[in-house]
């Protein structure tokens, strides 16, 4: 597939200053996304809002930019507004206010043309039950104006790529959950969209199918395909997304690369230190001379928390050294996005 090369694939984004502010100001401060950073944006969202008839504000003045070639994650609990956001970006939910532009096309102003730029993999299995796996792809191509032979070639290729060739003539209701999801992804790619949207793509899949799906998505990513994925799985977001927006109650609370989010918004690292000598004295010494928090001498080791600021660990080690304690071992457990989420919202991720 001749995709546009990634211009800013796995980039370490320069973080907006507001992330640090967000942390300082507490959970209710939304991060302002970067609008002008020189990157080629496939999706630009400004002030996007969806209020349902019941008065529920599903998405609240969202600003967002997705760069060409990146895997972008919308992370949040169920009901955070992720699916509504995807619905608006893919022309199926009309925004109450705001603007969304996909590949240069206003999705509200010109939905018919915008649909050419998007591929959609919904959470539910929306494969055409009246057709076989191959026909699902072929007809999709026909809806997009591909000639019969071009659609045939593309369907054959995509079935092969998604390891579904032997299921070509099978009715889709006979496909397993993982296969159905792969076929939906293949279908979304038939017309070679600028960006594909996957709404909770691994929900309900067994671990093996999850791995298989992500393997293919990573491959597409390597070829420069822009991918927007929603998930409530922290681990998945952490492992696969170049950048993430953490959402809750319809708002983006923070936005950045997973590592940056953890570094800026986590509680820091939990450190376990082994040393020779009086550990209680070491703990007192560290409490007095460093920024380490929650310092305790327990079970023959000293445990403490470090803020996520660079250079602090070195400071602690040299403090121990200057107090004539010999550090024999040091282990650090890093922050997870789970901690980031709890710090931002004050609550655990609801499953």
């Amino acid at each position, binding site marked *: 597939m001749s995709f546009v090369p990634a211009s800013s694939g796995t980039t370490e984004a320069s973080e907006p200053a507001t992330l640090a502010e967000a942390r300082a100001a507490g959970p209710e401060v939304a991060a302002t996304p970067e609008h002008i950073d020189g990157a080629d944006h496939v999706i630009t969202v400004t002030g996007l809002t969806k209020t349902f008839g019941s008065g529920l504000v599903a998405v609240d003045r969202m600003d967002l930019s997705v760069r060409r070639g990146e895997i972008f994650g919308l992370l949040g609990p169920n009901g955070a507004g992720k699916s509504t956001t995807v619905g608006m970006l893919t022309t*199926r939910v009309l925004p109450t206010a705001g603007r969304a532009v996909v590949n240069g096309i206003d999705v509200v102003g010109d939905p*018919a043309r915008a*649909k050419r730029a998007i591929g959609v993999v919904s959470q539910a299995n929306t*494969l055409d039950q009246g057709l076989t796996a191959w026909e*699902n792809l072929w007809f999709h191509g026909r*809806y*997009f*104006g591909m000639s019969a032979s071009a659609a045939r*070639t593309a369907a054959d290729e995509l079935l092969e790529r998604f390891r579904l060739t032997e299921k070509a003539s099978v009715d889709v209701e006979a496909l397993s959950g993982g296969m159905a999801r792969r076929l939906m992804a293949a279908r979304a790619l038939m*017309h070679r969209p600028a960006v594909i949207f996957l709404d909770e793509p691994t929900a309900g899949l067994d671990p093996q199918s999850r791995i298989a799906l992500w393997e293919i998505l990573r491959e597409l990513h390597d070829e420069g395909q822009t991918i927007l994925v929603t998930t409530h799985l922290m681990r998945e977001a952490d492992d696969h997304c170049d950048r993430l927006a953490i959402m809750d109650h319809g708002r983006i609370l923070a936005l950045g690369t997973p590592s940056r989010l953890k570094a800026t918004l986590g509680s820091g690292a939990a450190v376990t230190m082994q040393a020779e000598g009086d550990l209680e004295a070491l703990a007192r010494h560290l409490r007095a001379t460093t920024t380490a928090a929650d310092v305790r001498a327990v079970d023959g080791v000293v445990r403490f928390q470090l803020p996520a600021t660079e250079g602090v660990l070195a400071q602690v080690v040299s403090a121990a050294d200057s107090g004539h304690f010999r550090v024999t071992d040091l282990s650090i457990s890093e922050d997870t996005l789970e901690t980031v989420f709890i710090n931002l919202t004050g609550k655990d991720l609801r499953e």
Partner: protein
Amino acid sequence: MTSVEPRATVSRRAPRNPSWAAFRGMLLRDFTVLDKHLPQFMAGTIMQPLMLVFVLTNVFPEIGQGIGGVGGSSRFSSLLMAGIVAQAIIFIGIFSVGSELVREFGVTGEIEDRVLAPVPVSVVALEKIVAGGLQALFGAMVVFPIAAFVPATPVFLDVRFSVLATVAPLACLTAASLGLTMGTRIKPRTASYLFGVVALPLSFLGAIFYTWPSLDPIPWLKYVLLVNPLVYVSEGFRAALVAGEPHLSLAVIYPALIGFSVLFGVIGTRGFRQRVLG
């Protein structure tokens, strides 16, 4: 993982007329699916007319069950024939288009791929009407020989081709638009009531077993019936196919069929858009 050659030959450009391309693709899709389920479609289309015609025009006269009123059973067979064809068309509209849409929207969500085609959503709704109308026309052609030749007493056919060629497509459009309206307004949970609550009253009060002018003795019923689109379809086919039977004037039938097609077409398309846009 198998590496795949770049799909360089596939053009990303939009076709010259994307709406027509998508429309054609969807029409082909609907008939591919119909073709796969042709036996079920045929059985569903044939069974009721066959049973009605058999019992009413073969069994009843044989056992001396009084039916058909003044003029005898031949006259009844003739007027029933038009009604049976009309009923088949409306039923296909309700069940093939309506129930199918209820399923595609509410149960399987499989309409999604078509509403994501790069065309206005109304094109998809329009395709549903055309595909449903063609199915109804096909169904009418299947049912016609049953209604005309199964009755034990001869049917007095008097085909007026110009009327048939205009009434039949209008009737099919009315039926498919009605199906679209129902399919987009009805929730899957209530779809099972379609037959009892909608289809039965529609057909018993649809001038299938009697002509509309014959309702003179019950004037209130006669005029209430005018809200039922099936009345115009039945009477239209009577005008097109049956000899010597008084029927509603064509000057009323044509505007009514056009009016119902437009009305249900607009409501249905609007409902379709609303369903798509959540």
